[in-house]
């Protein structure tokens, strides 16, 4: 049965709506997120262009997978890949990732009041949401949650630290995971309460903004609790969405750095020849291209299978994340090398992809982490057959 999981028929099914979305996102970002724009944002405190973010809201990107009842387009979650891939391709960073993760978590676990309050605002770009689930250990696992919540007369009191909270300084609210007695809970923290508790992190990826949150003695009202769904299930959903978005970012980014490198190899000459003619550069580029093609296929399949039953969807998503994380990391490494000394400069755009690839690989599980889980999903250990054999 388990080996059969590997033999489950796989497919890619993209609606015309999704392919059109992908094309229009590609066009828009190619125009508004060229290298000059990306570099301008590196230097800014918020790291993003608010006007462009508003435009995205108007195009409906912030509500793609939010039900129409909350102002969204009601597409399946898989459709998010159609905009996330071009964002990676053009090194585009904005609170899209934070807000999308927050809205998906609200949908999975928030109650109706919380959803009604925040989802329309997120969709319209009026409020940015974020999530705070990673802790100082840097673990990729959902469990255990170290942050403690204690019930008080009026609500909850927290103790713990959270890291890599995207765009926290710009967010209107942050959803925090915590342990309450023996169960995981999710709590919505209003931005006003975070004052003095956040510190911007120094990140290798300069296109991103993330913050460390000190939750010590933070008191929250009872209404902060997300009680519209099961918190662990919500966290699992959140992880799956993040895998999809980061795999898509890595896919676009790997393609972007492939193109950047090819452009260089087609113009730079050494010893009187275009360097792209040398097999030592040409062949690795072919291997990278092949890996990207495979990764893209895995990504589109993961998007297609997102809403399928487990473990099918999880296998598809983890495979895409693992393959694309590795492919992006390898592609940027070779891009630096093949650019030669130019590649070693801050001025060369290869470093932008290099740093961003580190983010994609090390957020929500690197390839080694996902391969381990895939092994468990595909071939539970020890196998029944094996145990019998002994």
């Amino acid at each position, binding site marked *: 049965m388990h080996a059969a999981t590997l033999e489950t028929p796989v497919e890619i099914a993209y609606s015309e709506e999704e392919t059109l979305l992908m094309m229009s996102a590609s066009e828009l970002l190619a125009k508004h997120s060229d290298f000059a724009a990306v570099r301008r944002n590196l230097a800014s405190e918020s790291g993003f262009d608010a006007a462009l973010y508003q435009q995205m809201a108007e195009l409906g990107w912030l509500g793609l997978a939010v039900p129409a009842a909350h102002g969204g387009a009601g597409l399946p979650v898989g459709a998010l890949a159609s905009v996330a891939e071009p964002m990676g391709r053009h090194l585009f960073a904005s609170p899209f990732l934070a807000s999308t993760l927050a809205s998906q978590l609200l949908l999975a676990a928030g109650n109706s009041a919380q959803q009604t309050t925040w989802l329309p605002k997120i969709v319209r770009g009026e409020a940015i949401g974020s999530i705070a689930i990673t802790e100082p250990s840097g673990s990729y696992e959902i469990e255990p949650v170290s942050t403690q919540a204690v019930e008080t007369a009026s609500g909850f009191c927290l103790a713990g630290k959270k890291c890599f909270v995207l765009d926290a300084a710009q967010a209107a609210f942050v959803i925090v995971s915590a342990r309450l007695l023996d169960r995981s809970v999710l709590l919505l923290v209003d931005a006003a309460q975070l004052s003095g508790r956040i510190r911007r992190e120094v990140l290798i990826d300069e296109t991103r903004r993330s913050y460390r949150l000190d939750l010590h003695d933070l008191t929250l009202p009872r209404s902060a609790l997300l009680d519209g769904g099961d918190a662990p299930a919500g966290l699992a959903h959140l992880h799956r969405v993040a895998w999809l978005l980061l795999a898509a970012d890595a896919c676009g980014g790997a393609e972007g750095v492939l193109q950047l490198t090819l452009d260089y190899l087609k113009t730079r000459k050494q010893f009187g020849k275009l360097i792209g003619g040398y097999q030592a550069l040409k062949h690795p580029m072919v291997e990278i291209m092949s890996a990207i093609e495979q990764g893209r296929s895995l990504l589109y399949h993961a998007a297609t299978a997102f809403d399928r039953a487990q473990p099918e969807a999880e296998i598809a998503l983890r495979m895409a994340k693992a393959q694309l994380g590795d492919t992006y990391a390898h592609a940027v490494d070779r891009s630096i090398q093949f650019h030669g000394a130019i590649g070693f400069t801050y001025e060369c755009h290869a470093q932008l992809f290099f740093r961003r690839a580190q983010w994609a690989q090390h957020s929500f599980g690197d390839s080694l982490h996902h391969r381990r889980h895939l092994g468990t999903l595909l071939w539970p250990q020890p*196998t029944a057959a094996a145990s019998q054999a002994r």
Partner: protein
Amino acid sequence: MTALPSTEELAAFRTEVRQWLAKNAPPKPKWKLPDSFMEVGTDEEFEYLQKWQRKVYEAGYLGMTWPKEYGGGGKVAVYQHVVDSEMARARVPFMVNLIGLFWAGPTILRLGSEAQKQRYIPKLLRAEEIWCQGFSEPENGSDLANAQMTAVREGDEYVLHGTKVWTSLGAYAHHMILLARTDKSGPTKYNGLSFFLAPMRVPNVETTPIRKMTGEHGFTETRFDGARIPASCLLGEEGQGWNVALTTLAFERGAEGGQAGGLAMVPLRVSQVVEMAQTVTRDGRPAIEDPVVRDRLVQFAIEERGMELCIHRMRTPALTQPRPFAVPMMAKLVMSEARRRLCAFAVSLQGENAKLYCGDPDAYLDGDFQRAYMNAFSATIGGGSSQIQMNIIGERVLGLAKG
């Protein structure tokens, strides 16, 4: 061409094929089945496979996209895809007349005369006439355009002199597609070549078997020592052979569709290696329990599925940009290299027993993986080595300069 089938029609067709295969798949022979058409080395192997191809053809499952007037099915390609994937799934034997079905046939259909199509295509589908390929020569493995074989026109015949090598099925073939030089005065090596559909069973054609590294026989060296063939065997015009060959190579490299279908080799699936890893022990515990083995198996599985999904993705043109030809061009390279690595890994899982070889009663699966590892090189070397493939892809797909 008929219209595209509905999802329901396709599903029904898939069920029909699956049932047919369940009923008609040939019994496992007593001897060891070759890994691919390139490994066919004995008469009983050949006859068994020939019979199987004919059965598939007669059921209407081969050449489904080819024109009806030459024995094809006249259907849209998706039917053949369903058949091929079901055959892979059922792990039935491959098609023995592969060079005919995949390379010679499509070339004849594209560039041959009406007479040639009628003469060759029906018998090719039925495996009544077997085809082989004569592109490589002893001194020109990869550099096909440098062919030294000569063909001199004498009346209604051409007289051939020269040697072709690495001819799979050379001992069984009725026809060989080959390149010969009809004019040596051209400005470059590409001029003066002509493309022939040469009969093998005429005087002064001598085939010598070559022993493979596995110890088995599989391909031959073919000497043409003044062999006379009818002028009607010329495909295309005299001197235009290189262009014809490029068409054949495009089929061979998967850059063009139009093949008759069928399996080229028994595919090696990661799940087979997983099965082995669950069976054999390494240092006292099932190999699958070793975390490093698991990590590598997962990586193989990801790459296998990635390539499989690439084929699916090709069906939605919007998802193939900006490199619509990348996947067809890279398929042979990626799959043959993956197979080689997977075979080597599969051997390594066997511990001390990895040293046993086919014929030893205690070898795992009669040494299938050991032999498959060696045979895997036939695909990474033959039909344009992996290194040549990377040049081609780098230049044609990525637009990099020639070396």
